[in-house]
């Protein structure tokens, strides 16, 4: 049986990474081109890793399912990226960023990893500026900062409302420079269908060419997964439509443990669902809560238009319940409270929506100030809803946004399959049970630019790697399985669309494993998921063939994997009978209804192994110890 070795080096927390970097073996520059590394994913994590490994001289093969690597989901990040630069001179430091992240994650992350993340955060900003990323600046020409939820310092760097876009284009251009040099080769419009393991090590992947339908094999000395999060298991989320669990799930089935799958983040301010046909939810930046006031009518069934509801009949519930943080409580708390008032029937017109009202700010600061701060968001809101938020309060509701869980990795970012490294949102990461705003971009780039290039070198320098070609029998076996699965999907020719299954699954996990989870509900979901899965394999309709551009087939493969993964996510939520961060178990709350952690029984990472039976995953635990930041209950009252 595999035991989980985190491989965290000994020594004081602020010296672990420095020491470890020295202790790791290096690959001689002249030898690097003899090593082939596959990087799946071209978001911040994958693009930064591919560019850096290419610069070092490795032979890199880069894959993504979009038509260009510049379109990875990272492009959509709005708010900003954290770094402990202390340019604002407000007392920030590597240690404070580390402290805030451990606490914000509700004590379910590895201290040593978080500290390393904070250390390299400062290098990220330097690197991005050198690449020409046009961060916002002050009049003196220096970089500007803003503050974000869960922190009392201004450490967030931003490029208008398009920080993710600019950071990704920086990493993309660094990668294109390597493509021009020939160190990185691009394989776009490819879907990774499986990892190939030879003699216990990850030695390649099998992909489907999304234009021709061809099944292709690629061999390498190591494989890196940077394939993002699984938020789309909920169907409606703020993620891009193509975000999927396929790559990590297939790796899981090959032996990579899946850690904390129930840790999912719900963002409180998204445009509410408005119709059956709805395909995704749109985020309205967290920054809006700085000037907007959240409220609902005091009486359920009050369907008057908001302007006709007098002050005395409005409930500004966050301001009343959380006197010191008010509208700026962390994401999980704001989300749960919105759900509570809507469950009481007090949502706008009895629907799942609450008001985010700017009337007071407009009166106080003038419309032009609000326009300067949030103009682009107000415009987007109006485009989508057809309502003018300057005159009518915005309607918002929480939505799935980010997944803290992911493949388990050790300190070197290696999964339980030797040679398979996992970076970015795809790993179970440094965010514990809740991620702070502006920290996902930081983690993706930390992994790709500054951590993986070292740890992967160590792996290559020390692992016994016999030459393996893509004609090895393991590849052929894998290709056959992939082809069979595609044929099976195409042969069903049933009566239900792929989306109808995805919607059904999404609604189920949203109801039972979303903002609030109970034993009874989770058990209901565990009964229902295998039924939906069986129904899918009996009656899904996939038209066309496998030998062409077939978007229905692409979706069907992804939904089939979500239908397997969902069961693990719910099992994990049931297993963890405590509330922490984004995971709220109704059985574990304080008298005031706040999340109650249970450190005696659950101060661990839950890492699940695939047993061959989808309903019987095997749980392994990595105990977490907190030597620097003492365990304490969060309070935002």
């Amino acid at each position: 049986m595999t035991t989980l070795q985190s491989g965290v080096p000994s020594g004081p927390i602020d010296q672990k990474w420095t020491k470890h970097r020295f202790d790791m073996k290096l690959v001689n520059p002249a030898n690097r081109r003899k090593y082939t590394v596959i990087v799946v994913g071209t978001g911040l994590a994958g693009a930064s890793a591919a560019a850096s490994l290419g610069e070092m001289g490795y032979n890199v093969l880069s894959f993504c399912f979009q038509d260009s690597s510049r379109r990875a989901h990272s492009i959509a990040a709005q708010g900003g990226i954290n770094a402990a630069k202390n340019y604002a001179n407000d007392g920030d430091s590597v240690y404070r960023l580390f402290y805030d992240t451990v606490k914000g994650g509700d004590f379910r992350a590895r201290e040593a990893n978080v500290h390393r993340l904070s250390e390299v955060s400062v290098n990220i900003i330097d690197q991005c500026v050198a690449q020409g990323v046009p961060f916002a600046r002050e009049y003196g020409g220096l970089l500007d900062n803003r503050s974000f939820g869960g922190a009392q310092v201004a450490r967030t760097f931003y490029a208008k409302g398009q920080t993710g876009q600019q950071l990704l284009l920086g990493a993309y251009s660094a990668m294109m420079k390597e493509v021009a040099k020939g160190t990185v080769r691009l394989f776009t419009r490819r879907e990774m269908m499986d990892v190939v393991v030879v003699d216990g090590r990850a030695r390649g992947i099998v992909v489907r060419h999304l234009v021709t339908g061809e099944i292709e094999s690629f061999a390498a000395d190591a494989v890196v997964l940077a394939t993002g999060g699984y938020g789309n298991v909920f169907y409606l989320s703020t993620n891009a439509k193509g975000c999927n669990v396929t790559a990590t799930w297939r790796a899981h089935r090959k032996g990579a443990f899946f850690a904390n799958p129930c840790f999912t983040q719900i963002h409180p301010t998204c445009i509410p669902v408005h119709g059956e046909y709805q395909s995704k939810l749109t985020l309205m930046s967290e920054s809006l809560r700085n000037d907007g006031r959240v409220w609902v009518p005091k009486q359920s069934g009050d369907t008057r238009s908001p302007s006709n509801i007098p002050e005395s009949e409005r409930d500004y519930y966050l301001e009343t319940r959380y006197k010191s943080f008010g509208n700026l409580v962390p994401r999980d708390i704001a989300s749960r409270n919105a759900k509570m008032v809507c469950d009481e029937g007090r949502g706008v017109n009895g629907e799942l929506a609450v008001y985010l009202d700017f009337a007071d700010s407009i009166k106080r600061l003038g419309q032009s100030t609000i326009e300067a701060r949030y103009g682009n968001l107000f415009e987007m809101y109006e485009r989508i809803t057809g309502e003018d938020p300057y005159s009518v309060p915005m309607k918002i509701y929480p939505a799935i946004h980010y997944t803290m869980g992911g493949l388990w990795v050790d300190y070197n970012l290696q999964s339980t399959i030797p040679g398979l490294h996992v970076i970015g949102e795809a790993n179970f990461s440094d965010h514990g049970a809740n991620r702070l705003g502006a920290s996902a971009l930081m983690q993706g780039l930390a992994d790709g630019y500054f951590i993986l290039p070292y740890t992967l070198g160590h792996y290559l320098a020390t692992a016994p790697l016999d030459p393996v070609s893509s004609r090895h029998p393991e590849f052929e076996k894998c290709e056959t399985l992939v082809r069979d699965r595609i044929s099976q999907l195409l042969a069903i020719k049933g009566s239900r669309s792929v989306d109808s299954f995805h919607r059904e699954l999404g609604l189920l996990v949203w109801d039972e494993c979303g903002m609030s989870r109970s034993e009874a509900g989770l058990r209901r979901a565990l009964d229902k998921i295998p039924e939906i899965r069986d129904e899918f394999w009996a009656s899904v309709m996939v038209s066309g063939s496998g030998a062409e551009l077939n978007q229905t087939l692409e979706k069907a493969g992804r939904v089939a994997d979500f239908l397997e993964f969902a069961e693990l996510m719910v099992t994990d939520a049931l297993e963890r009978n405590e509330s922490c961060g984004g995971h709220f178990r109704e059985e574990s709350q304080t008298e005031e209804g706040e999340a109650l952690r249970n450190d005696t029984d659950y101060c661990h990472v839950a890492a699940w192994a695939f047993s061959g039976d989808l309903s019987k995953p095997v749980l392994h635990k990595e105990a977490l110890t907190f030597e620097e930041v003492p365990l304490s209950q969060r309070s935002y009252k």
Partner: protein
Amino acid sequence: MTKTISLTLKVWRQKSGNASGKFVTYQVPTVDVNASFLEMLDVLNEQLLLKGEDPIAFDHDCREGICGMCGAVVNGQPHGPQRKTTMCQLHMRQFQDGDTITIEPYRARALPVLRDLVVDRSAFDRVVQSGGYVSVKTGQAPDANAILIPKQDADLAMDAAQCIGCAACVAACPNASAMLFVSAKVSHFALLPQGQPERQNRVLEMLATMDRERFGNCSNEYQCGAACPKGISVSNIARMNRDYLSSKMRLS
């Protein structure tokens, strides 16, 4: 009550790059005006699928107007009638009951059709590979605040850098030129100190690649600027042209 409208769609259907294509007409009787354009296509596709027909292939991903993956020509305009709006952000309330809407792929030599509304935009990647970057390696950077950049320059660079690479500019241009795309990248770097060392080479190489990839020439029609969903200004083209001339002169 949600309002619905009834539409006639004329959609370009083409099975593959080599196949010939044609317009096919579909009636969509109850379109919710709050749906996005792509959601309207989703609903139609679901109906086609259940009838055993192939759904209409179209590229999309973020559906938030930022990834640049979506895009087709709607009633003669790339991304459709609403200004500064990508096709995924276009909503059906922009149309009237009884409208006929024509939807076809971008048409340009450099952007061959792969299927239905899906085109191959990899030429854009190759243009970037020829110089759309600053040659700095990971680890070589000085402290971020060691490089001072006047706010006005940073803001202008940001305006240019906002390009989402959707190729609407090429589709809008009568010559299928990529000048707006290339000039946005060239300007982004030309406006920043980090972009100076490679400034001359960059503009020459990127324009040479643009030609090689069979994009057309610019004849100052400025359709590109009007079609751009991000409002990238055509003044970037003028800036690039100045850079191009001075770089050429200095080299000769």
